[in-house]
């Protein structure tokens, strides 16, 4: 149990998707104008990460990694399909997002409306693919660990995007030099936020 909490906390603060790896920057920069929409996007990212990372974990464990196919027949023991992971993961993510979208639309139209365009949009968010690839690279041992990692990464991403959205709302009337307005100042804020997040670097869990 403790290792799950550790992975969760670690992926929120120490290995934050945005400030430690700068993944998922495109939607982070583009959709962070208001807190409300960015919170919607952040929740969608948590949702998708918490589903795709465990699914990809199963795919990786039972199909892709070296010797994974032995459950079909012992003669596949030396088959290594890891080179397929990119295409498999991306396909899984895209189809999972579609599936999730359809399910939500069917059962909860209010949630569907609030997530709106963001769900299909995050199929191409690099934080999602990054989550699956990190899961593979770090060799999590159980489905629970992978889920905890996916959930934590999503929460970290949400924290980052609502944080910058609130700052951008605050500086809306600031007298920022003209060439820096918009994306320029957002990049600078991201860097400064990165300095603040360095607080957690080095904590061993």
């Amino acid at each position, binding site marked *: 149990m403790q290792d799950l909490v550790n992975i969760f906390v670690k992926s929120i603060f120490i290995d934050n998707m945005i400030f430690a790896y700068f993944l998922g920057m495109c939607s982070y920069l583009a959709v962070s104008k208001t807190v409300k929409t960015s919170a919607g996007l952040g929740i969608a990212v948590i949702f998708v990460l918490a589903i795709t990372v465990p699914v990809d974990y199963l795919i990786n464990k039972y199909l892709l990694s070296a010797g994974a196919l032995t459950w079909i027949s012992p003669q596949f023991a030396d088959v290594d399909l890891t080179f397929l992971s990119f295409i498999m993961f991306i396909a899984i993510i895209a189809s999972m997002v579609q599936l999730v979208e359809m399910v939500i639309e069917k059962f909860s139209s209010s949630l569907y409306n609030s997530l709106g365009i963001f769900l299909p949009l995050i199929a191409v968010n690099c934080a999602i693919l990054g989550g699956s690839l990190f899961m593979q690279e770090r060799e999590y041992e159980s489905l629970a660990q992978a889920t905890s990692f996916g959930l934590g990464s999503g929460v970290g991403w949400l924290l980052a995007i609502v*944080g910058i959205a609130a700052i951008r*709302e*605050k500086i809306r009337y600031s*007298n920022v030099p003209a060439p820096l307005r918009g994306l320029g100042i957002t990049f600078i804020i991201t860097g400064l*936020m990165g300095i*603040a997040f360095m*607080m957690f*670097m*080095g904590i*061993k869990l």
Partner: protein
Amino acid sequence: MKSFRRYIDKIKPQFEKGGKFEKLHSSFNAFETFLFVPDTVTKSGSHIRDAMEMKRAMSVVVLATIPALLFGMWNVGFQHFLSIGQDAGLWTEFLFGFIQVLPIIVVSYVVGLGIEFAFAQFRGHEVNEGFLVTGMLIPLIVPPDTPLWMVAVATAFAVIIGKEVFGGTGMNILNPALTARAFLFFAYPQDMSGDKVWIADKADAFSGATPLGDALVGDPISASVSDMFFGFIPGSIGETSTLAILIGAAILLFTGIASWRIMLSVFVGGLLMGLIFNAWGMNGYMNVPAYTHLIMGGFAFGAVFMATDPVTATQTSRGKYIYGFLIGFLAVLVRVLNPAYPEGMMLAILFMNVFAPLIDHYIVQSNIKKRLKRLKTINIELK
């Protein structure tokens, strides 16, 4: 004085629109309003008149740092002579520290104000007073042995990236002084931590570990509680004496410039986290009595002068409690749990600076919701 005023009035037209030095208007204005009370009044709109304008507020903050500064100067000399094993007497010690600290202050002000003036000139706005405080705070939070060029680079970074790109005083999201300190800390780690840097011209044989340094490596803290409270310990220039800082805090609270909510909740947060660690007690550092966290390192200085910065803190009253509490909480957490950093105050404040707008946002939203609900019930009752 009168003749000086006459001289200023004489050359004033040259700096106004159409004058010879029109371009230098904002610099002239800065000097004039710095020296004399301006006679211009606003012409439209409704205004609340209060003696406390920005220039005066800033001056009070600078005044509040004076006890910490004077004590810091003396302590720099005291620690130096202690390390070489001499007892030099009060004045020699103070003089040594004065000579050591004054160049840092001068460099910080010259570089920072230079950039401020340049930006004001270039962008055509007036020179703001904000840097008067930042320029004083930067020397107080650096180790006494910091090379001057580092102070200059860090000040330039803080003023340009931390403040001017956001539009100058009052618009920044991170505390500029702490931005400078964080820049130094991450850019030149070997000059900002360890046992060497805290005492100016230290003799090699003398251990210069700060209480925080002791605690981090698991040694018992060598300084006594009263030493830490009064400040006879090595450390950054202005942070050692909790007593001198508390005098500053009294000035700030009496004049109403700093928020007591933030100050109080920072101390409460730090104390509570310390108590939690005491109860947990996994290693030596966790068993350090909770109250020592409040008097060692930069905790008190950060709580009084940095966390209360009205620009970067939360603006709502409820938000101030949350903001301050989390600063104290995180600062002690980082101190104890993060082996990479001996001091957590700086980064805890920067971290909460980043999230202050978010806290405010949700508190404002909840207020709006609450009032709408109240309105709805009133409407129903009326029907």
